């Protein structure tokens, strides 16, 4: 009996060790990053001096959104180092205060309250995902502080009458696929699709994306033959794929921010032996190797998706961002979420530099509402709710690579694969 008690007592300790070992790496990264910034007070455009401007953010560095959260942190840190190297913000050095909200809606509220009340930061930057930004932006709004968020395009973000909220990507979820809808309905007579199927995850992002496409395609006369919402944790898509296949739609569009559900739908469609002429998935195909490994790289050919950033984009400042990012992170290319984080910080920087002061947050938000900002994602501007007014890039998998196909001035490939070739193995 004593031994059992002993064992049970030992288990949590073992567990804690395992967890500590897992998190250890992250802590080291954070430490290094802090060290680097301390040393970067020499640079090209003069020296930053005086008391640092402190910018607070909470990010999901652990938990469900740990991967994109870490990417966003890298984007923020690279921006901070680049600003400090070129003379700082308003001549003062910038210091980031980043907390970990563990992908938890309650903790993110605690974190932003602490950043404002205890750390008394000068400026704020947002967190990752609509799920976390919805409560976090409410804290910032109450404190009347400008809140630029890098990822969170749910319509629920922008229907609360907030004035200090700005979303630093090109468009909200219902407009995620605008370029795809325009392209597919603009196809010449005979190639234009007659029918379409829509399937979306039941979350604040997935459903609005699919609804947006459905609305635009129906307006152009494309008949809807299937439209269903599924719980995000759905694993088995066999029956859904069989039902879609039975309708033989020309277009299949899936709204989902996840990876597994998108992969499972593709596999189930392959098993059902049905390949549509055009296949659009909101975010799943942007997971790069994890996506192509899980569905087989041959099966990626011709699949469309919307994306905010591409490493080869000819946008102003992108070359400098890439150079700094690769230098800091072992020659790795930045993930889309890192670029989004960087762009959010660029937006804040533009407002501060234009206003010339950080003392008046209302002046900052007024300036952002009235002006547009050049970022590595392209030019961004906002309506009165803080929702952006541009369009996402339309990307497509071609020959095992991710290419931008529209708009033409940002395209990395001059062809569009159409119609999508059949799945392999059939």
């Amino acid at each position, binding site marked *: 009996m004593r031994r059992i008690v002993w064992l049970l007592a030992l288990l949590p300790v073992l567990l804690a060790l*395992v967890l500590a070992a897992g998190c250890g790496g992250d802590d080291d990264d954070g430490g290094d990053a802090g060290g680097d910034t301390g040393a970067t007070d020499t640079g090209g455009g003069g020296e930053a001096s005086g008391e640092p401007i402190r910018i607070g953010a909470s990010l999901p560095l652990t938990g469900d959104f740990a991967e994109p959260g870490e990417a966003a942190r890298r984007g923020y840190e690279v921006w901070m180092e680049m600003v400090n190297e070129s003379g700082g913000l308003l001549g003062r050095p910038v210091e980031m205060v980043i907390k970990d909200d563990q992908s938890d809606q309650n903790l993110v509220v605690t974190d932003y309250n602490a950043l404002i009340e205890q750390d008394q930061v000068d400026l704020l930057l947002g967190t990752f995902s609509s799920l976390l930004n919805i409560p976090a932006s409410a804290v910032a709004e109450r404190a009347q502080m400008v809140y630029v968020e890098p990822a969170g395009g749910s319509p629920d973000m922008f229907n609360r009458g907030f004035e200090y909220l700005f979303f630093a990507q090109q468009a909200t979820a219902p407009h995620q696929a605008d370029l795809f809808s325009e392209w597919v309905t603009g196809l010449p007579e005979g190639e234009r699709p007659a029918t379409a199927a829509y399937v979306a995850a039941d979350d604040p992002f997935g459903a609005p994306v699919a609804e947006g496409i459905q609305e635009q395609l129906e307006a152009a006369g494309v008949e809807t033959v299937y439209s269903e919402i599924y*719980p995000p944790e759905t*694993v088995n898509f066999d029956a859904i794929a069989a039902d879609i296949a039975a309708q033989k739609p020309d277009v299949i569009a899936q709204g989902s921010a996840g990876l597994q559900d998108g992969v499972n739908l593709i596999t189930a469609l392959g*098993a059902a032996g049905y390949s549509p002429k055009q296949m659009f998935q909101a975010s799943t195909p942007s997971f790069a190797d994890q996506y192509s490994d899980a569905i087989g790289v041959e099966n990626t050919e011709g699949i469309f998706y919307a994306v905010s950033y591409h490493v080869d984009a000819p946008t102003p400042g992108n070359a400098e961002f890439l150079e700094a990012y690769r230098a800091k992170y072992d020659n790795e290319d930045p993930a889309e979420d890192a670029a989004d984080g960087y762009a959010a910080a660029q937006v804040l920087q533009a407002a501060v530099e234009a206003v010339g002061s950080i003392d008046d947050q209302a002046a900052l938000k007024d300036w952002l509402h009235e002006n547009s900002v050049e970022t590595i994602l392209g030019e961004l501007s906002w309506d009165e709710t803080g929702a952006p007014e541009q369009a996402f890039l339309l990307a497509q998998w071609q020959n095992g690579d991710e290419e931008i196909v529209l708009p033409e001035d940002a395209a990395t490939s001059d062809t569009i694969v159409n119609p999508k070739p059949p799945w392999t193995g059939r």
Partner: protein
Amino acid sequence: MTQLIQTIVLGLLLGGVYALLASGLTLIFGVMDVINVAQGALIILSAFITWAAWSETGLDPLLGVLVTTPAMFLIGFGIYMASVRWIQGKPPSTSVILTFGLALIIEGVMGMVWTATLHRATPAYFNQSFTIGDIYLRKGQVYACAIAIGVLAVLYVILRVTWLGRAIRAVSANMSSARLVGVNPSTVAALTFAVGVATAGAGGSLASVLYPFLPASHYAWISRLLGIIVLGGMGSLPGAVVGALLLGVAETMTQTYVSPQWATLVPWAVIMLVLLLRPQGLMGQKLREDVAL
């Protein structure tokens, strides 16, 4: 009509996969009164081993079953000797806590070795199907069902014909009498636990082809599997099979004829209904305590 048949076929195939994954869980509970919450994590561990062998050497996941089954047998034996044997004879709730801890440790180790990213073995047949007329049967699921039948047949033979099987059933029926006739209950328990974990080897190999997985995927599997064995009657092998097929068909029928939105709810509604009408599950034995009242 085609749609109805197709939906039922898809459900039965899905149920076959569930049956394969649930068999070890119900065996371990039936003999040992241990609820092995780590079974899901062990299935994912086997999936990772299968994936590693497939991506390193090109070993087909179907042949991988021949590697993972003995490997998981040894791992199961090791886990029993190191931990589970200390709680033998304690209430089943103790085993839930212990094996949940084991599941978390296994998840952590898998995360360190293979990282928390999505994996999947994609042999040529991973998204292929057999077709009969207008009906298609996904190859990976057909193989999984065949292996499930094989595993269940082997378990049946072991339990009915071999000395070990008779000893297992003796211990399960009455431990002290089994001891009197020369059966060593702790050896029997160790082997039962190892056999139960070995079934996770076959299940994990097939799951690695059917669905992408990451270390945390075991939560989704274990909740579904516990539901199946409760529905079938805890400890009953035939019950697990019937419960698995029933849930598989309920899931696909709901997706097609109601809405995918309800598909995660309906299986649990079926389980609740069965338990209200038949608290011991479809094929479970009533416990003696119930009868004595």
